């Protein structure tokens, strides 16, 4: 098998949380616990899970923004765990990140121009003239009018700020972009704009995405492969179609059935989970999911399952993977459209411009 662009092996990150001042008894929090995956060039791998599952930490470990406690990260064939100092800084341009919060991710004291110029200066790319051309080009790629370059972040709306963040990531021509919940903080209609933009940019520039999200609906649209994390471990990985057609792990199924379907006729068929995510400091013995799992048996309470290949590029960490009932997927929400409704949506689709336009009309600038 050819090596992927990003190869993660047994990556772990533990934090020491000292619980007691007097006894000095140390407790260990396993934020990421032996995670392995590989990401092919041009592919989008979605890392999915609920808050606290370690998906963001995994991404930052892969980027070496946080030092791993154990494990290796290979990018484009070379071990980046060995990099230190300026070689590490030179490597960084190949792997960029887009953040969730469009308000915290831009320096409030820097104009768009300064924000976009900085990566070029830091990496010593180009001269004044070529930098200007590059900034101009990237701003247009992400759908921002270059006239806005002199403005400060607070003069933009959330969606536009997210475009600035995307531009900052793309300006150094990275191969891999980590998208850390890039649309979670945006309104639905703006979400769709940004998702479309990310898709267009991937097609144009041949980017690979490591897409971190809790929103399976977004993942369904944008990912090629899905990896589900629970309490620091990957519990299932599969190509997107297989995953959504027949999720194998009980937790994946619970996640999928918990998405509120935009379909009033699809109520009340969810797989209820009991309890909430346990404290990552006191992990349960055996399978981490067993206290909430409706299929748990004795073995699950004693023995921790490993991520096992189940063929066709799929892997699951569950003792009972072969005993689970068949999965009934939910129908597409638009199936409930009446014929007239369907025609209307089609008419709407036909009129929506195929390419994302540059948002340069003045009404786009928010007042706040």
């Amino acid at each position, binding site marked *: 098998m050819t090596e992927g662009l990003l190869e993660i092996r047994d990556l772990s990150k533990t934090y020491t949380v000292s619980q007691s001042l007097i006894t000095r008894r140390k407790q260990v929090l396993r934020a990421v616990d032996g995670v392995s995956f590989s990401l092919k060039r041009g592919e989008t791998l979605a890392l999915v899970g609920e808050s606290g599952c370690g998906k963001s930490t995994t991404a*930052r470990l892969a*980027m070496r*923004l946080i030092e791993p406690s154990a494990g290796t990260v290979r990018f484009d064939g070379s071990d980046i765990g060995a990099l230190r100092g*300026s070689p*590490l*800084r*030179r*490597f*960084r*341009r190949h*792997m*960029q*990140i887009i*953040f*969730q*919060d469009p308000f*915290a*991710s*831009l*320096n*409030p*004291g820097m*104009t768009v*121009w*300064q924000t976009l110029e*900085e*990566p070029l200066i*830091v*990496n010593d790319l180009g001269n004044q003239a070529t930098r*200007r051309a590059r900034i*101009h080009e990237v701003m*247009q790629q992400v759908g921002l009018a*270059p*006239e806005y*370059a*002199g*403005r*400060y972040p*607070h*003069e933009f709306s959330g969606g536009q700020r997210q475009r600035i*963040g995307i531009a*900052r990531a793309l300006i*150094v021509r990275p191969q891999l972009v980590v998208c850390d919940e890039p649309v979670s903080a945006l309104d639905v209609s703006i979400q769709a704009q940004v998702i479309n933009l990310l898709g267009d940019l991937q097609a144009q520039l041949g980017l690979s995405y490591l897409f971190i999200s809790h929103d399976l609906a977004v993942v369904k649209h944008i990912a090629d492969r899905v990896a589900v994390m629970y309490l620091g471990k990957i519990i299932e990985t599969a190509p997107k179609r297989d995953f959504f057609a027949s999720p194998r792990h009980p937790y994946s199924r619970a996640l999928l059935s918990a998405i509120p379907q935009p379909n009033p006729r699809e109520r009340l068929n969810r797989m209820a989970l009991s309890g909430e995510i346990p404290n990552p400091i006191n992990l349960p013995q055996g399978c981490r999911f067993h206290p909430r799992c409706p299929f748990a048996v004795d073995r699950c309470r004693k023995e921790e399952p490993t991520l096992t290949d189940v063929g066709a590029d799929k892997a699951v960490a569950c003792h009972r993977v072969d005993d689970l009932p068949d999965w009934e997927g939910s129908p597409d929400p638009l199936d409930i459209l009446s014929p007239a409704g369907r025609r209307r949506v089609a008419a709407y689709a036909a009129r929506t411009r195929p390419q994302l336009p540059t948002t340069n009309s003045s009404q786009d*600038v928010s*007042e*706040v």
Partner: protein
Amino acid sequence: MTVAPVFMPARRHRRLGSLMRHLRSPVAVTSLIVVGLALGATLAPGLLAPHDPAEQSLLARLAPPSFLGGPEGHFLGTDQLGRDILSRIIYGARATLLISIAAVVISCSIGTTVGLVAGYNGGRTDALVLRLIDMQLAFPVILLVIAVVAVVGSSVLTLIVVLGISGWPQFARIVRAAVISVREMEYVEAARAIGAPAMRVIFRHIGPNVLSATIVFATYELSRMILIEATLSFLGLGIQPPTPTWGGMISEGQKYISLAWAASVFPGIAIASTILAINMLGDVLRDALDPRLSGEDGR
């Protein structure tokens, strides 16, 4: 495709423009005038003062201000040795402001550096610095100064050094807190992700967002230093007579306050108005330095 028109040139002026707009308010203008006068007195007292501050006139001792029926030529009256109070206030600004400004510069430089390093690195460095800050804050400044003055004697240099060193913990604490709140922001992470070296991250991304807090605090600290210096002079531990200082003048004048209030009240007004003006300027600076508060297109 048209080439972008605005780009770089406008960007520096935005902040300057915002500062200028804020400085146009009546409060800011008044404060600027007061601070300007104080600074002028510090730099060139001879140009402003009508008399030599040391010139005694025993015939016109403890005279009331001229606008209240006192002798001509002594606008704010005279003290117990017949020296012109206005001239002494003007000359007194020199010692007071020189010591305060120098002390703030010293404590600000030490404090900001220590705070930046402690806040950015965290861990052991941070814990150590915090202990140091606590230790120094637990020790009363006045006692420290009295002890040092008692040992080495009082001089401008001693006062500057002692006050300067006594003030750094507050700066360090404020800067450290600001750095910690900024350090976890995603834009700092983004700067690290594009490969920016630590120094650049500190000075380009963390520094400016911490700067406004520092500058504002420095103005408050300046007024505190003026007050401490006045207190020391009042207690007789500051600059020794005959060099005029505001605190010293109040101290001398208060003995005769029932006969001639002018000798102690006017230096007091000088201290109060200077401190008020500096604090007001601090507020104006704070508003002007925050791009989110600086008018124009974003409210």
